[in-house]
């Protein structure tokens, strides 16, 4: 069986992610803003902007036809935009969170609103992109109609958050210096959260059943995504670790972006918070904390029996997540 598996993996080694047609509609530096082409007739009137994390590539949202959150959203008539932050290089080392939020994210939102002649849009923030979306919505409430957060950390000091425990002890100044942070090094850190499962068992699991082409191709796409890790702009990374992981400013206060206070109590818009109950990167308790902090009276929490990555690519997620988002937005 091992020989067959090697052959199947070899045949699938060139599998690329991304299956849905999209157009680049705006760019700024390395950032690209895409709009996905509709697959269900006329798209919805209010666009949905997907804000992905900086630490991985956003094509995970559109991995393959039967594992594509984007496709699921399009099939429900949503008009989907996606931010690709690009790969930072040495010239980006002084890029700050303010640059990302008040420069690039605001630029994307303004562009969409201007072209569409709207005052506000819907935001879907994923993981670190969820943190950005929370900050953006708190700073610019007039531009966000509905906010969806997916596997988004809010309380960074929960008892089961291993990444946070480590991050709180690390001297970030010494780590980052004046450089960017290697994506490969970060990846090693993420793998070290569950080293046996993530670097051993998942490969051995491939031997359990005869290699099925679709399954192997899916595996290779995810594998490629996992190790396709952009370096992190040094200044922004330092701010993110210190402000959120070490100082937990969403809860303890004192968060400022561009000299303006970010207070989640100001979030009075409708919020849908999607939580993976088996998420090892963002513990469910970390995401649940949003309900108590946000000022919204229209707050929905949806907990799914999924892990962090499973939230976008598992078969169950394809059935549950786009439907939940589509129905929730349709009701608003």
């Amino acid at each position: 069986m091992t020989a067959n598996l090697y052959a199947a993996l070899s045949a699938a080694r060139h599998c690329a992610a991304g299956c849905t047609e999209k157009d680049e509609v705006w760019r700024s530096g390395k950032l690209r803003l895409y709009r996905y082409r509709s697959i269900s007739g006329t798209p919805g009137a209010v666009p949905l902007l997907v804000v992905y994390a900086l630490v991985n590539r956003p094509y995970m949202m559109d991995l393959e036809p039967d594992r594509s959150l984007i496709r699921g959203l399009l099939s429900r008539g949503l008009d989907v935009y996606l931010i690709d932050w690009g790969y930072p290089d040495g010239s980006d080392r002084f890029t700050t969170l303010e640059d990302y939020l008040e420069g690039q994210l605001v630029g994307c939102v303004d562009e969409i609103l201007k072209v569409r002649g709207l005052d506000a849009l819907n935001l879907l923030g994923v993981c670190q992109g969820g943190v950005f979306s929370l900050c953006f919505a708190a700073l610019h409430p007039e531009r966000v109609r509905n906010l969806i957060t997916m596997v988004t950390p809010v309380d960074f000091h929960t008892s089961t958050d291993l990444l946070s425990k480590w991050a709180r002890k690390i001297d970030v100044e010494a780590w980052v210096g004046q450089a960017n942070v290697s994506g490969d090094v970060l990846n090693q850190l993420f793998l070290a959260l569950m080293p046996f499962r993530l670097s051993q068992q998942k490969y051995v699991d491939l031997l359990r059943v005869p290699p099925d082409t679709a399954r192997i191709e899916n595996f290779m796409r995810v594998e490629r995504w996992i190790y396709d890790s952009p370096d992190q702009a040094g200044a922004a990374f330092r701010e993110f670790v210190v402000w959120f992981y070490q100082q937990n400013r969403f809860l303890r206060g004192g968060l400022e972006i561009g000299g303006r206070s970010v207070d989640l109590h100001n979030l009075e818009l409708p919020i849908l918070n999607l939580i993976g109950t088996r998420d090892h990167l963002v513990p469910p308790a970390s995401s649940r904390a949003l309900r108590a902090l946000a000022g919204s009276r229209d707050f929905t929490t949806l907990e799914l029996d999924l892990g962090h990555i499973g939230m976008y690519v598992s078969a169950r997620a394809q059935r549950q997540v786009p439907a939940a988002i589509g129905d929730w937005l349709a009701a608003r």
Partner: protein
Amino acid sequence: VAADAWRQWAAFAALFNPMAHASAAGALPGSSPGFAPFLDAERFAAAARAFHQSGEDSQTAAAAFGDFLRDQFGGVLDGMWGRSAPDRSTPPPPEAAALGPTREQQERWQRLAAAWSRLQDAQRSLQRLWSDALGEAARTFVSSRGAAAAPLTPETIHRLYDAWIDSAEEAYARMAHGETFGIALAQAVKSAGEWRDESAALIESWAKWLDWPTRSEINSLSLRVRALEEKQREANRKNETAARPAGKKPTTTTAKKRTARGKRKR
């Protein structure tokens, strides 16, 4: 591994280093190998005594003393004027005072060696903790299994493997959530950063000698460009505010940033 890495660094440095570490032959224990004036002084004293005690053949003794002086001090300027560095397989001892015209270079090497040593110590600490967790996992796993009642099948082997992974992850998690592991990991990250910074400083010193651009220069230029961009945005904001009719709602700061930075694709 450490010795290999050090030898590679030393060989790499020797390729670029115009500031040779001078003659290290006979350096005093504990002194920098690149600077040995103390041993030179001892030799001078011995030669001077021999000259003064030479008796009747003072001419021969004077010639010998003169030759000694030429030999002994002939290499004093070598370190300054580019004779190639001797092959060195060990760094200067960390406790040695750096002396002479190459003292800055010696101190860089000392700092790099110290950072490397701290990194190794931190990695060894992590390795010990990792080994402890693995040992605990193995003991727990094996003690919970009796002798197999039936022959192993591929399915039972897989189940056994999964049980081992569960056991290993549980033992690892107990260790990884602990204070000791967190401190060791933080120390490893910190010392890796320090080693990188010291390596960069050393390479920058070579780059300066070769008149190559350095990362420090590029960083400095990048910050100046950022400052100029910010001034430009501020000037744009002031111009727009001045041009806006009274009573009109101001546009946001960030919208102007976008205008300055973004390009629409059609």
